[in-house]
């Protein structure tokens, strides 16, 4: 299936580093009335010369009516930092999410954000000072290592050429010792951050899938090769890297395809600079199925065998997941015998049956990941 093309006549974000041909369609720009002179807003406006901004009072913006091609710039009046919601039924690594905005321009078929948020628009929070101030005080309060990621409600780097938020964050974290930033992405927008003095406090992570899955399910994401090339460049500049096989999708040729991704990955990156590899099979809340069916009628991902998990999300049956993780772990360990692999939102039973070990609880899993961050 060909990649979806940008809507005719729309403005676009183009990676200034020129390592990607990805363009995201943005046809409407809404700006909260009180921030028209904010330097971040001014910077974004300069990057989108073809669009006439609409200035609207914050309380008058009806986010629920906005479309996918709308970029809304506003202040976040709530908290930026939130713990991963996790679930008590499965093991969670106690990650912290830093919400820099809402929604993702990549628009993957399986994306939970389609039903999780009350808006389809791309929302960017521009009050970076408030964000940094909250971050600083939370890190101060926290006695142990804290791992923070920006990739829950958006892709960490997709809008970076426009917003530049990752530059600000990498710089901030370079001055921390107990806090680590993970930038998780399906893009290859590393041009602006590659040369930063990160002090080893930032882990650059990529979500990986076979190229045909990328073409069919991952909208405007970078190709597998571009993601791996970007990861290699980051490793060359001393960044730690992480790789997330999440979501792993089951289909007829999944074994050959995923093994080939692992082969390509280890042929191109140095495993000594990989902090972690995580795995998680495709899971979704039941409400997502009709949305995928309607928005992406060609996608077949929801027609595999799913059962309701303990967290009420639809999951592949346990033996299927164990089989997938076991094989993936085998392929990874063939190339990196001491690979640090963890599973995202799985039971200890599945951990043990597939990768041979399991943390006793969430805190143990957290300590394992914290320890991986410390390794230089």
């Amino acid at each position, binding site marked *: 299936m060909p990649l979806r093309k940008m809507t005719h006549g729309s403005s676009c974000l183009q990676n200034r580093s020129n390592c990607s041909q990805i363009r995201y369609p943005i046809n409407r720009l809404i700006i909260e009335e009180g921030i028209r002179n904010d330097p971040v807003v001014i910077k974004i406006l300069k990057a989108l010369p073809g669009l006439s901004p609409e200035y609207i009072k914050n309380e008058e913006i009806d986010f629920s009516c906005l479309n996918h091609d709308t970029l809304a710039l506003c202040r976040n009046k709530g908290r930026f930092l939130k713990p991963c919601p996790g679930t008590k039924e499965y093991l969670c690594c106690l990650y912290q999410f830093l919400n820099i905005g809402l929604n993702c321009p990549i628009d993957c078929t399986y994306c939970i954000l389609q039903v999780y948020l009350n808006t389809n628009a791309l929302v960017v929070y521009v009050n970076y000072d408030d964000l940094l101030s909250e971050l600083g005080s939370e890190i101060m309060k926290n006695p142990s290592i804290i791992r923070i990621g920006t990739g829950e409600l958006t892709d960490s780097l997709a809008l970076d050429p426009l917003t530049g938020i990752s530059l600000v964050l990498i710089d901030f974290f370079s001055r921390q010792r107990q806090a680590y930033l993970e930038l998780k992405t399906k893009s290859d927008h590393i041009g602006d951050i590659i040369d930063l003095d990160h002090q080893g406090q930032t882990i650059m992570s990529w979500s990986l899938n076979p190229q045909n899955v990328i073409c069919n399910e991952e909208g405007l994401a970078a190709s597998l090769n571009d993601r791996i090339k970007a990861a290699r460049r980051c490793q060359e500049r001393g960044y730690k890297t992480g790789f997330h096989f999440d979501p792993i999708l089951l289909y007829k040729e999944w074994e050959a395809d995923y093994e080939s991704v692992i082969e390509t990955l280890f042929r191109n990156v140095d495993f000594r600079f990989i902090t972690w590899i995580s795995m998680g099979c495709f899971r979704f809340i039941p409400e997502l199925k009709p949305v995928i069916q309607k928005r992406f009628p060609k996608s077949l991902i929801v027609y595999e*065998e799913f059962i309701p998990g303990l967290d009420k999300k639809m999951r592949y049956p346990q033996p299927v997941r164990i089989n997938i993780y076991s094989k993936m772990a085998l392929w990874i360990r063939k190339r990196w015998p001491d690979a640090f692999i963890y599973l995202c939102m799985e039971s200890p039973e599945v951990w043990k049956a597939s990768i041979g070990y399991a943390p006793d609880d969430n805190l143990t899993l957290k300590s394992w990941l914290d320890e991986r961050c410390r390794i230089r």
Partner: protein
Amino acid sequence: MLHFEDISAIECMNLSEIDLSDRCFCFRFFSEPPHIFIDSVKRFGILYPPVVRAKGDSYQIVDGFRRIEAANVCGIDTIHCRRCKGSLTDADLFFPALSIFLSSGQPHIADQAAILYRASKLLANDIIIDVILPILGYPSSPKVLARLLPLAEMDKELGSALIGEKINHDMALSLMELDPQERKQLVSLFLYYNYSQSKQREIFEHLKDICKKENRSLKDVLPELGWEGDMEDISSYETPLNLRLKKENENRLFRHSGEGWNPGFSNETPMNLRFTKGDENAQKGFSGENKVASGEAFRQRLKERRFPTLTGLENEWKKRIKSLRLPPSISLKPPPYFEGGKYRLSLSFKDIKGFREEMAKLDALEKDDAWIKLFTK
């Protein structure tokens, strides 16, 4: 607006002068007169005069389609009608015609769809939403219209099943997405096994998912699951509507002619209903011996196809439990969907003595290898 004085006294008209093809005010989903109706007209004539009006060289029917149709079937040349005077447009006449139609009672949902369909040919959309929908007892909403209007396009099998309350409105709309042959096959399956509405939904969703996943049509998948039935004549099935008509016909024929039942609604096997070879359950069900079991067997085959891993685990579990020969007072259930979680053990006993006996049985079980094996994957 049409007033009472605009309608003539009863006049005698030649049937040939009436345009039977003009369905402008035909508000019934099934406009053909049923047998009992034809029989009544044959015996007593038309008791309540239809309403027509002059249009071009002929008369247009405003009310009484089935009566006039029945008279036509019976070969009657002249009928008594009332005639609208004046020169009203079809749109002007729509509301009076609808009013006359509704005076005979609340229309069924399929007839409501037919009314909306006719309205859509004459009236603006906002009039339909703001005026007609409330007349029919619905809120003024485009969404309501969008849910009702497609029903006017139902084929007769589906319409009959909906009117017979064998399928519900949502299922009718879902079935409208299918191609006509597939729809017939599925309606016949639902009616034959008399599946409840929730089971129909489950079957529909599973079949749809299988077809999508395997990129195959329902026509191909259904026979593989043991169902090849389709229906050319819904009257072979015992929908409430057909049962009522059958009973009325039976009474009438026995009462008036003294003849036996003419098997228009036969209990015999419909000629066009087939089962896949080797599907003994289905064949049994077909002969009426074990219809419920046969219907459940179909669902099980469907479940095995849609959820092969889960049904494999369930079958394996059943096998293990069977080999344990648990006493009837003890039952053990696996975690839901075998997704981690906990097993559920239940004991039944009458008193403390019974409880002690059950506990002793459990103690014995705990040493049984088959019991231990049950919890090892």
